[in-house]
Structure formats: C-alpha cells, structure tokens
C-alpha cells in the first residue's frame, strides 16, 4: 500500500464507522449551507465554536476513558464544581481562576483513579459516586447560587475573546485535540491505552503498567472537565453549580458517534471531534429550522431528536460491524 494512503486504509469496521461520521458531518454542513441563509455566516460559525468547545473538551477525555473500556460519569459534576472554583479564584488573577478550576478537575480525576485502580471499584460505580460528590461540593462552595466571576482580572477573556479571528475556547479545544491525537497515535502510552482496552489481563501479561496508565487516563479526563468548567464560568460570567447536568451523556454520545467502541480497545481522537461537532450541529440546524418559521420545536424536542439521531447512528454502527465481521 502506498505510504500516503496508509492513514485512510479501512482495516476494520471501526474505521468504516469513523469514515461515516466524518461524511455525515460534511453532509450536514452542506445541508445547512444550502438550506439556511446565515448558516455559514461568521457569526454563526464563531458562536457555534465558542459554545461547543467545552463539550468537545469533555468528549476528548471521555474518548480516552472509553478506549480503556471504562466510563467517566463524573465529568458534568466536575465541570460544574470547577466553574464555581474558578469563579471564586478569578478575583485574584485570571490565571488563578484558570489553574484552580483545572486543579479541581484534576483532584476529582485523581480520586476516580484511586478508587478504580487501587480499590478496584468498577468505573461506572466509582464515577457515579464522585459525580454526586462533585455536584454537592460545587453547590456547597457556591452556597447554592451562581458565583459571579471577576471582570477586572481578565478572567472573562478566556471564554469571550477571540485570537486571530477565532474564539479562544476553540483554540484551546484545538490544542487539546492535537495533543490528544499525538498521545494516542504517536506516543507509546497511547498504544498502551488501546491495548489495555483490548484486554486488561493480557496487557498486564505483556508487561504494560496497567494501573498507572488507567490512572493517567482518569486524571486527564478530570482535568479536561475542569478546563471545561473554567470556560463555562468565563463565558457566562459566573460559576454555575447547577450546570453540567447531562454533559457526561453528551460526551459519551459524541464518543460513540465517533466510532469508538464502548467495549474499549478502539477509538480515534479525530472521529471523536467529528462526533461532538455532529451532535452539536444537529442542535444548530434545529435552531435554524425554527428560524425559518414553518415549524417551532421547543428545546425538549431538540433533545428527543438528538436522542433519535444517536440511536440511528448506533444501530447503523452495529449493523456495519456484524456485516463486516461476517464477511
């Protein structure tokens, strides 16, 4: 096979599913561009990117967790708590807000890692518990209300300003995805993460440091959720202890739509980004459809439609897999 074509080689049904999500994203963009006047306007594109960057960050962390065969339900609660922590620290310095928010996320991630690798509790249960704890901590710190951020230290620049014409959150997300791609595809630890998801016991027998690698993955997921919380606080000017509900599900959905198997051992950073953008795009297109005035779908309907969309993707993936396997 020619070297240039190598990255595009279809070597498994998963590769096919990934190609599918990218094609679907392109199709949806084309559909929007043809149907709605202002779809490709800079206002729509920039606000789309600004708002959805934090979801993309969480999806990235989730992708790594799911590739190991685990799950991290705590990311929504972590982001909510981190947004409060960031808001509380923002008056002293913008960087203090940023770092404190990320540190809060890292702490939850480290706790998850400890419970899962040392106490041998299943990730689903462990992160369900820390999710509740993180929400509670956020509410306690915020005294059950939004915590306004400081507008004097420049903390709001992180979420609200642009750099080279693009929103700063989008730059941050882009950097995180490039880093994530590098880790997964080019560094040994990325290959180890994949191998662990393929079979933990086997990976151990092959001499991989399973516990340490898993710990790193959960810590990374928590830290990314913390960063998403910082963006949330910065963008909306307040720490939001009641936000973040259902974010973990959006992240899981993005990862799954991106062709990553929930059983672990396979996954792609690029397709995860495509999956997150795709799900967000459904939301965006529904808004435009409402704008045309012919129909009027409430936000609740948007959830229903997203759910239906996810179901279709998952069923298609499953069909694709069985066919690929049986041939």
């Amino acid at each position, binding site marked *: 096979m020619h070297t240039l074509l190598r990255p595009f080689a279809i070597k498994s049904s998963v590769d096919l599913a990934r190609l599918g999500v990218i094609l679907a994203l392109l199709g949806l963009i084309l559909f929007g561009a043809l149907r709605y006047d202002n779809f490709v306007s800079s206002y729509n594109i920039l606000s789309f990117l600004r708002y959805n960057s934090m979801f993309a960050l969480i999806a990235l962390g989730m992708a790594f967790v799911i590739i190991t065969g685990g799950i991290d339900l705590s990311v929504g609660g972590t982001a909510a708590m981190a947004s409060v922590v960031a808001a509380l620290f923002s008056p002293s310095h913008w960087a203090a807000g940023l770092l404190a928010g990320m540190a809060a996320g890292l702490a939850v991630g480290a706790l998850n890692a400890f419970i899962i690798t040392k106490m041998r509790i299943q990730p689903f249960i462990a992160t369900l518990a820390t999710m509740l704890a993180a929400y509670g901590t956020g509410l306690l710190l915020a005294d059950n209300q939004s915590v306004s951020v400081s507008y004097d230290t420049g903390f709001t620049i992180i979420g609200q300003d642009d750099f080279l014409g693009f929103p700063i959150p989008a730059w941050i997300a882009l950097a995180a995805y490039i880093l994530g791609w590098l880790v997964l595809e080019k560094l040994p630890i990325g*290959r180890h993460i994949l191998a662990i998801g*393929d079979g933990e016991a*086997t990976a151990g*027998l092959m001499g991989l440091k399973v516990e340490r690698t898993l710990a790193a993955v959960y810590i990374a997921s928590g830290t990314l959720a913390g960063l998403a919380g910082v963006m949330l606080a910065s963008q909306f000017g307040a720490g939001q202890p009641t936000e973040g509900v259902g974010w973990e599900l959006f992240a899981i959905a993005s990862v799954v739509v991106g062709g990553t198997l929930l059983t672990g051992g396979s996954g792609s950073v690029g397709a995860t980004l495509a999956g997150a953008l795709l799900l967000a795009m459904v939301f965006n297109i529904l808004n435009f459809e409402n704008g045309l005035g012919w129909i009027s779908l409430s936000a609740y309907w948007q959830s229903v439609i997203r759910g239906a969309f996810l179901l279709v993707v998952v069923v298609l993936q499953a069909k694709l897999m069985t066919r690929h396997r049986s041939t």
Partner: protein
Amino acid sequence: MLLSMQGISKAFAGVAALKSAALEVEPAEVMALVGQNGAGKSTLIKILTGVYRRDEGSVAFDGKAVDFTMPAEAQAAGIATIYQEINLAPQRSVAENIYLSREPKRFGLIDQTAMRRGAEAVLKTFNLDIDVEWPVAHFDAATRQMVAIARAVTQNARLIIMDEPTSSLDEREVAVLFETIRTLKRSGVAVIFIGHRLDELYAICDRVTIMRDGQTVAKSPMTEMPKMALVRHMLGKELAAFQAMAPDEDVPDRPLRLAVENAGAGVRVRDVSLDVREGEISGLAGLLGSGRTETARLIFGADAMQRGTIRMEGRERTYHEPADAMADGIGLVSEDRKIDGIVPDMSIRENMTLALLPKLKKAGIVDRIRQDEIVTRYIRALGVKCASPDQPIKELSGGNQQKVLLARWLATDPRVLIIDEPTRGIDIGAKSEILKLLRSLADAGLSVLMISSELEELLAVADRVTVLSDGTSVATLPRKDLSEAALLSAMAHQAGPSGDLA
C-alpha cells in the same frame, strides 16, 4: 543445561499440588511436558514463570539460581510463555503487538517505520509475509500464534513455553507451527511443549517429561518411549480398584436409544460415532484434548454440529440448543460443577429443582408442596448427606454436590443422561458410591453416557466404551473385550498416517 528445576514442591491450602517434581531442558531442544488434568504441569510452569512461588526446591536457568516473583521477571530473564488463548491485543496491529511496551522511539514518538520494518523482518524468519499494520484479530489462529512467538523472539527469549499450542489449529497450521519451532531450535531457542496429541509430540519433540499426581514419573528421549508406555505412565493406576459393577456377560439386542454417526464440528470433533443402548452405561474414553467433552456438548445441542447425524430412538434429530435436547429427554451433567453446574449460594432445594421449575408451576407460582416431595425423595434415594434441604449447596462435600446435580437431572425424568467426569474431585469412598448409583440407574432403564479419564471407573461400570483420539472415535469395545490393555492401546492409537507432521 539451560533449565534445571529440582525437587519442586508446592501445596495449596495444605493440598499438595507438586511433590518433588523435576524438569530439565537443554538448549535448542523441544521438551514435551505431558500429564493428565491435575498432574501438576501448569503448577510447575507457573512456578517457573513466577506466577506462583515454590515451597521447596531449586530452579536454575542458564546456570544461575533464579527465583522469579512475577512474570515480568521471568520474561526479562528470557523465558516467554505462549498461552493457549494467545495473549495479544486483538484490535492492535501485528507490529504493535510484537513491540508493545518496547516500542522503538525517535524524538520520544513511536518510530512507526522502524517498528514496521522490525516486525516484517522477524516474521520473515518464520516465512510469514503479512501486512503487519493490520489488526491481529484479522488473522487466523496460527498466524496469531506466530505473532506471539515473534514477540517472544524479539524479547530475546531463550526458552519458550507453549501451552497446548495446537489445540485450535488445523493440520496445515500445525505444520506451519512445527516449522516455526524448528526455526527456533536452529537459532538455539529451547521449547517446552505442553500437549496431549501423541502424534504431534512424536513429530516435534526431542524428549519427554511425564507428570502424574504432582510428581515427575518418567523422562526419556522421545524415540525411546513407545506410545503405550507413555500413556501408561500418564494414566498410572488408581490405588483402590473398584469392584466390577457391570454384568460381565454381554447382554445382546438391547434396543438402541441414542446413536451418533460421524458427528463433527471444527477441529476438536472430527468424526465421532457412538451408541448408547437402553439401560446401559456407555463409556467415552480418550486422553485429554481428544474431544470427549466437545462431543458431549454437540450431542446436547450446546455447540452446533456441522457434520453427521444424531438419532434418538430411531428418529433423526437436530438439536439447535440444549432446550431441544432436553425436550427429547437428554440431560448433561457437566465436568466442572463450579462453573456450569451448581449455584453455590442457593439451597439444595433450589439447586435440585432448577431445571424443573417450569414444570413445577401452579398458577405461575412454584408449587412448594410438589417441590418438597421431589427434593425429599431424591435426597433419600441418592443418599445426599445434608443438614436440611435449605442448606446452601456450597457447604456440601464434592460428592454430595455431585449427587444434587445428578438429582436435578433425574427429576426431569431423562432417558439419556450424559455425565462428564462424574467423580472428578471427589474422595475415593464417594466415587464408588456415585458409580454404584449410576449403575443402579442404568439397571432401572436409564441410558448413561459416561465420560471418564479413569480407566478403573470405565472397567468397573461400563457396558461398552467408545475411545476417542484426536476428535475421532477409533474403537468401540463391548464389555467382553474391555481390559486395561485394550483401552490403553486404543487410546494410544495413531490417527492415521500424517506424514506431513513427521
């Protein structure tokens, strides 16, 4: 000498698994390690590779005394193990699997080119030319095994342990594996080959070490160990012989109940024919890996039969799942009580009536009175020793657990009962009791297909014995022709000329 293990003893919870066992391997030789289930082969290997610690004895590798505390240490010292289930990451590429945890790096990043070239080069030494960037799962079992061996070679292994490497390979693949083993020998690597198929052992191994009951009972060059002698060493002799329980005269013309003709599926069961008549115990003998359990699963509908026919009382039947076979009156008491038999935390009552529950319903609810009747009847009939029917089954001894399992099937009123190793893990007194029970059930009209590794058992109770070798029924011995010598010679049977292996 490359490896010398001497006087190795190991006990688990006071039960001796190894009693002063020994194993010696020279450089560049293929050593066969054989023995029945529970002979201590895998314990010995696990002590060598650092999975278990030994209680006594010494291990020297490459002239130095060693004491590995975990598998990674043994690997680093040059001892690699290819497990039966081939431990690779199936979705990762061939190249990655070979280099996992030792990836070639350039500027901190994985050097993909070097990894690909290295993998291609090492596979080429085994005449394997495949695209190393495809996932391992894409390739057949033989290729995957080769990848695992290539991984061992790149780790500079001097001794490679292969645990039943041919169990999932077809003949052509076995030939490829053997060529690979010869290549390893030429480069000075020694192999410990754990296997059961005699033809293969004689085709590839230089010497053999035979284990039985945790001890090394014989070692010799392969050429000086006739097959009959090898089998005799492996099986040994049960100390307390059972008295004969089956009538010695051949009872002719009992009607055929279950007839299996030319059954086959995959590589484990190639061509099996056997008969079970009314009111008789039909034995199924053969060495480990000869396909006995797999044959039972085919008859019971637990695995799909690809070839051959099953006739139940004259009618040709196809069983797609166990429920079909059960509807025809066939029951299966499986070999491993712990895994697919008992539900440890449930009571004797519940365990005994598990298969019967659908029939015990009255208005959708379990009819407790009938359940009690049945449970009481079988506890008495089979002599289950228990405090009460509501005692958890895990508190019973192995023999009594086996009786409860037997009762579960008897309560469904079967016409054919397949029973796999009925006395495994049961003390000697209880063994004889279970056998008597089976014999009396047969005398009362039940047809029993009894799988057993113990010749004494078969000689004591069976009306006829079908012998399997390498997935093929090679002999059927009626009661009058049954003897230890006849069984041994049938089990050592050579499954036809397979010159391509030699």
